[in-house]
């Protein structure tokens, strides 16, 4: 079935699925330029009853929205359908003077209905609306062109940087398009990163091992207090278990990790909970990353979440200007996590996200030479795993 047919079939069920979600779309702002796209038409059919306002100038809409009390909160309930001009497939920006993994980011959707107090998007996006870009054919062509250039033996691409990869699947079946698309690509690997448990729509797909479904995890207390509108830990692990049964390689991201009284017990229990239900041999990678934030996030997050405790740790400005836990704290967290994970399976592939060479060495006793070296290690890991 082609994309249009798949979307049309899907739209019939969209409304019912939408009713089951922990969020509601209150209004759709439809950019006139996107009005005639087949993706837009299918999208509107999947959200019957949601008021639609046609927008001539989206810049004006965005500008006006920034004057209300909580534009970020408003943006999560209001959908803007528009075109994306420019490149939608970009190298992960990473962070300067740290080792990064060479991931590529697909911008299919920006923003998210989940509301994590630590979310960097709160200070990063200049458009607060949940935004769906309807020029889908352009995106798929761009991915196709990128992979056909074969710049790397294996490229890792993901949709979970500027949104959650699965939370919106009932409204935008993005992953349902991308999974079959990547199944046929030799040198491309898709990673879906999520905090949801919305895996039903993807379980039946023929992924051929070319899509990794991964979950960002935290102890239940942190999820409850800091990750609003997300699935519980139990639900996330349950969803991972379902995906593993269907042969999907899994990934887990302990990122961001928080330092709080009792963190050791909290994270150790998460590790135990995962591997009570998940076979570690089916886990392709696990990342660790301490909570870090750009300076401007603090005021925004404190304003939106007055009760948040995320800034209570010993956080100081790092070499890239972002605040991080004291190095001693980070390395201690990483060492312990590595120890607990190795107890489960000594063969687990564990890496650090946006960390310095010193921290790698302190945590593991060695470090990748640079970001390219880490990328190479990923390629080797995938070869061995698949």
């Amino acid at each position, binding site marked *: 079935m082609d994309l249009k047919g798949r979307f049309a079939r899907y739209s019939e069920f969209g409304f019912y699925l939408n009713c089951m979600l922990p969020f509601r779309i209150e209004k759709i702002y439809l950019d006139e330029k996107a009005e005639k796209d087949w993706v837009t038409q299918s999208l509107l059919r999947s959200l019957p009853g949601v008021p639609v306002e046609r927008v001539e100038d989206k810049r004006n809409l965005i500008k006006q929205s920034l004057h209300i009390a909580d534009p970020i909160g408003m943006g999560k309930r209001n959908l803007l359908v528009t075109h994306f001009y420019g490149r939608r497939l970009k190298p992960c920006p990473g962070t300067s003077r740290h080792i990064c993994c060479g991931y590529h980011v697909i911008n299919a959707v920006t923003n998210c209905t989940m509301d994590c107090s630590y979310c960097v998007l709160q200070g990063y996006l200049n458009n607060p609306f949940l935004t769906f870009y309807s020029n889908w054919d352009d995106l798929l062509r761009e991915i196709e062109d990128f992979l056909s250039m074969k710049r790397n033996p294996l490229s890792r691409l993901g949709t979970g940087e500027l949104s959650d990869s699965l939370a919106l699947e009932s409204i935008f079946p993005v992953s349902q398009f991308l999974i079959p698309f990547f199944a046929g690509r030799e040198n491309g690997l898709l990673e879906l990163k999520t905090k949801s448990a919305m895996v039903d729509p993807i379980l039946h797909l023929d992924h051929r091992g070319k899509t990794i479904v991964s979950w960002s995890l935290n102890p239940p207390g942190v999820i409850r207090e800091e990750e609003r509108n997300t699935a519980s830990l139990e639900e996330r692990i349950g969803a991972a278990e379902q995906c593993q049964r269907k042969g999907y390689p899994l990934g887990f991201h302990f990122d961001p990790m928080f330092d709080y009284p009792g963190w050791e017990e909290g994270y150790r229990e998460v590790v135990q909970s995962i591997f009570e239900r998940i076979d570690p041999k089916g886990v392709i990678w696990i990342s660790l990353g301490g909570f870090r934030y750009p300076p401007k996030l603090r005021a925004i997050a404190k304003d939106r979440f*007055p009760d948040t405790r995320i800034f209570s740790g010993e956080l100081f400005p790092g070499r890239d200007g972002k605040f991080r836990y004291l190095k001693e704290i980070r390395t201690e967290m990483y060492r312990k996590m590595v120890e607990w994970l190795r107890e489960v399976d000594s063969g687990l592939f564990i890496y650090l996200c946006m960390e310095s060479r*010193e921290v790698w060495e302190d945590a593991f006793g060695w470090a990748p030479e640079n970001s390219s070296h880490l990328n190479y290690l990923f390629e080797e890991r995938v070869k061995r795993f698949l």
Partner: protein
Amino acid sequence: MKYEQLEGGGSLCLRIETKNGEETKPQVGEKSFASSLPPQTSNVTTGMADMKMIQEIPLHQIDLLDETFSVNFMPDLRSLRSSIREIGLIQPVLLRKRKGAFQIICGFRRISILRELGNDKLPAMVFEERERDDLHLFIVCLHENMMARGFHAVEKAIALEKLIDYFDVDRSVIIQSYLPLFSLEPNEKILSTYLSLARMEEDTRRYVLREEVSRSNIRILSALAPDDRIALIPFLSSLKLGENRLREVLTILDEICRRDRVGLKEMIHRTEIQAILSREELTPVQKTERLKRVLMDLRYPKMKTLEEGFEKMRKALHLPAGVSLNHSPYFEGRELEIDFQFQSMEEYRSFVSSLSSLADKKEFEEMIQGSRIRSTKFEIRNNLK
């Protein structure tokens, strides 16, 4: 424009002139302000077109307990008092007939001073009981005060709260039309800040006014429980805190309380904090400095341990005077930095000689190897390699 008293029929009337001398209908405010008023206040300018006769009203007939239209908070009456003493009342007060007495619309301070000075009557312009609705009169009061003296932060807060709670004006109208009146940016956050100030305890509001606390610090104070604020104000008042230092102290206290899940009251009653506050020989500035050190140590205990450990090792090196040895910012890197300045070759040779002897010192080697030693202690084989 100017006010002038005219004789006529045994009473006084009010005439308002524009700058070019042309007589015009009385206005209650500048054009830019009036034009910004919302629909529910749009009749203010036309309403005031009717001149009010100035009447002599006995003070005892004025209901001094009715503060419906008052936004006063800690009024400074000194200059007004000396002015009235010297030349008398220039501008008549505004009153409304109400239940056989007179309700004060505008002029609470003037009436208070006239009473204090022993006057038994005063010139006033009087509205009939049902002539105008309450909101209209409140707006008149706001305009008159704004033109005459302006409002401080707490008075703005009280006025905005009255508009919402008593006069039932819609929040969006207040944001768009009234916040600009008070020279405030028209947004919800500003309105919420002022409303939270209006609802704070009297002592907190006094502190905000006295110390000219900024809006961002008002927001921090407003996030606290009333009991915590009540405990906090005497504590803050005993210190010398500028704007940034106040924010720093409030933020650190808040973050320690959140981390340790303790109440603010409990926190400021800690022995080490009370020990500083109780030392009467210390000035507020000295108390503030010492308190900041204590709070920083409580807030960043691991950093404190690292700093102390580094300092201990640094002292053990017995570095010559003029040489400083520093760790990387926040201990993020492993690098050490030695800094010295010299003016002569002799001085330079002396420094270099002292520094080269550092290589023989065990403590110096430990400082350099410190983090590497720690990492090998926990060395873990990683399959990535």
